[in-house]
């Protein structure tokens, strides 16, 4: 009964420069629309979140990944499957906290910032903050509340880009109200 199961498994290719420039245009417009960097960061996170809650369904449909058993497995899947699938890069997973609830994704290169240099008047802008929102939204849909932030960014002169992820709690599924 596996008819039609081979849907377009190879993802459609898109010009990466168009992608990078489109993202740049988005951030630029947000910078025009909002007064300060903090607000732009917030909007990027919100947009990312809205992408993430839908993207996770696409991810589950396309990959054969099932539910992860622990946070380490989640970290591996994010780095090796999800980033590979959507951004074509494979970040490394490092800097685990002793309790195993916090780790870093190290991005050697970040396709979002290929042509970007941060001007001095945007020193607090987290240019790629959309990624945090996407990860947060996607993980929330699989019952994980995770705190995500950029710890290092090549745009600020760091050698690598580092996304720090901290597991907060498992979101329990509840029966809808009004049911026994």
């Amino acid at each position: 009964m596996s008819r039609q199961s081979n849907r377009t498994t190879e993802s459609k290719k898109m010009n990466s420069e168009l992608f990078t420039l489109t993202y740049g245009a988005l951030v630029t417009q947000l910078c025009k629309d909002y007064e300060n960097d903090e607000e732009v960061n917030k909007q990027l996170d919100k947009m990312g979140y809205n992408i993430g809650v839908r993207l996770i369904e696409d991810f589950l449909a396309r990959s054969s990944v099932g539910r992860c058993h622990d946070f380490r497995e989640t970290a591996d899947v994010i780095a090796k499957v999800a980033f590979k699938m959507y951004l074509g890069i494979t970040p490394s997973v490092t800097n685990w906290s002793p309790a195993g609830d916090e780790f870093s994704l190290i991005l050697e290169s970040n396709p979002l910032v290929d042509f970007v240099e941060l001007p001095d008047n945007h020193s607090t802008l987290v240019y790629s903050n959309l990624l945090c929102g996407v990860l947060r939204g996607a993980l929330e849909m699989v019952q994980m509340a995770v705190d995500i932030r950029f710890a290092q960014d090549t745009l600020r002169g760091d050698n690598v880009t580092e996304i720090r992820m901290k597991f907060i709690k498992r979101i329990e599924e509840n029966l809808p109200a009004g049911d026994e």
Partner: protein
Amino acid sequence: MTVHNLYIFDRNGTCLHYSEWNRKKQAGISKEEEYKLMYGMLFSIRSFVSKMSPLDMKDGFLAFQTSRYKLHYYETPTGVKVVMNTDLGVPNCRDVLHQIYSTLYVEYIVKNPLCPLGETLQSELFNSRLESFIRALPFFSARAG
């Protein structure tokens, strides 16, 4: 062999979609009540199955059958639940239910930014694709039942 009906629930227990083909007898309660009853039963059976499992479970609850019908269940890690009732002759339907999720729900609902999530699905396109998908199944037969 035949397909009786199909429910899709989201993670909050909202019935996103319902359709039926060869259902000769109705439950005698309103559709809303029926959805709630179905979701409540699934919720309980799922927790029962995982609590009683003597081994660590992977896929969990897959299906049950009575003397007259078989209920097939598929759940994604995001909590989307696809439930299909068929007659007893139909074999394991996991692939079919996964395809309904991945090639129909994700393609026509999730990827359509204008389709709100978490509400009853209004998409004509989704409905018609689902209809033809089910009718094309090898074990779908309009006359049986």
